[in-house]
């Protein structure tokens, strides 16, 4: 454990990267990328039994090495999201859940109103709830008020790779949130992840930007380094921006002057 752990619901994590497990070219690349990313917490979905391919044994491969964070992806009603969370708890023996409640199937944008109600109920049922929300400081406050263990505002649309569309709003949420802020969705490249940490986020959730890059294992290493870099820079306290120049070398004693 490093000296600057991420604390969520009393659990300490050395890594501030939460990794998805979907959209990889194949299972081995996924495992190598998770390894390279240094993540300690990986997300999974809950789906009806079917005859699909490799995913059957996915849990066996990751459950030993990583804490699992099941999600309720795709749910559009509080009822389905809550049932999915309860099935996840039974299937994976964890009361942690990444709560997703979608208000628009095209945009995969959260339905903040239902989200707060579902989060409230899941907290009462004993879940550790990490809700995927938007960059709305009032919604984030409500989610913290009902007992969520963290908030997960989007940087931009899921899978878009557009980075952090509204840095000012994310920074505002970070300065005010009583619970950890995990930037979720939209990360496209390493500097996006570093920026998230510099804005004050406690962690970053990444799936597509790693899984769909040309070299997921290398990109996973890039994201790991970027999140460390952004965190260190945040702690180090950056220089202020100023509109004019300031010399770095000494001004006096110039040759020939």
């Amino acid at each position, binding site marked *: 454990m490093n000296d600057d752990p991420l604390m969520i619901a009393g659990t300490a994590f050395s890594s501030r990267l939460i990794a*998805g*497990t*979907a*959209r*990889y070219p194949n299972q081995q690349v*996924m495992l190598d990328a998770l390894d390279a990313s240094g993540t300690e917490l990986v*997300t*999974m*979905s*809950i*789906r*009806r*039994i079917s005859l*699909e391919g490799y*995913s*059957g044994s*996915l*849990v*066996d491969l990751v*459950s030993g090495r990583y804490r*699992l964070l*099941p*999600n309720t*992806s795709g749910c559009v009603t509080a*009822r389905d999201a809550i*049932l*999915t969370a*309860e*099935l*996840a*708890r*039974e*299937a*994976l023996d964890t009361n942690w859940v990444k709560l997703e409640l979608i208000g628009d199937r095209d945009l995969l944008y959260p339905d903040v109103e239902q989200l707060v109600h579902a989060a409230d109920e899941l907290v009462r049922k004993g879940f550790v709830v990490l809700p995927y929300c938007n960059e709305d400081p009032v919604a984030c406050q409500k989610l913290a008020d009902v007992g969520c263990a963290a908030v997960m505002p989007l940087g931009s649309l*899921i899978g878009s790779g557009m980075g952090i569309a509204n840095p000012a709003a994310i920074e505002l949420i970070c300065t005010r949130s009583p619970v950890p802020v995990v930037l979720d969705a939209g990360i496209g490249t390493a500097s996006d992840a570093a920026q998230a940490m510099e804005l004050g986020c406690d962690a970053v959730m990444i*799936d*597509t930007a790693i899984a769909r890059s040309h070299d997921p294992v290398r990109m996973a290493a890039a994201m790991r380094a970027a999140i460390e870099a952004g965190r260190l820079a945040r702690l180090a306290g950056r220089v202020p921006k100023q509109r004019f120049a300031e010399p770095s070398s000494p001004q006096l004693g110039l040759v020939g002057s």
Partner: protein
Amino acid sequence: MTRLRINGVDAEVRVATIAELLVERGIDPRARFLAVAVNGAVVRRTEWPVAALSPGDEVEIVRPLQGG
């Protein structure tokens, strides 16, 4: 024969319990990482051998998949 709705699909099955249903579906009830809900309520694994199914029950049989 019992008429059930399993994972959103209607089916006629000759089973009395969830455990029997899983077997009938070719699923090993001892397999890890499974979960079952009947009519919107999760049925704990320990109840599968005894939990009776009634006609019209809506059964969900799920397991984890990759996710983001």
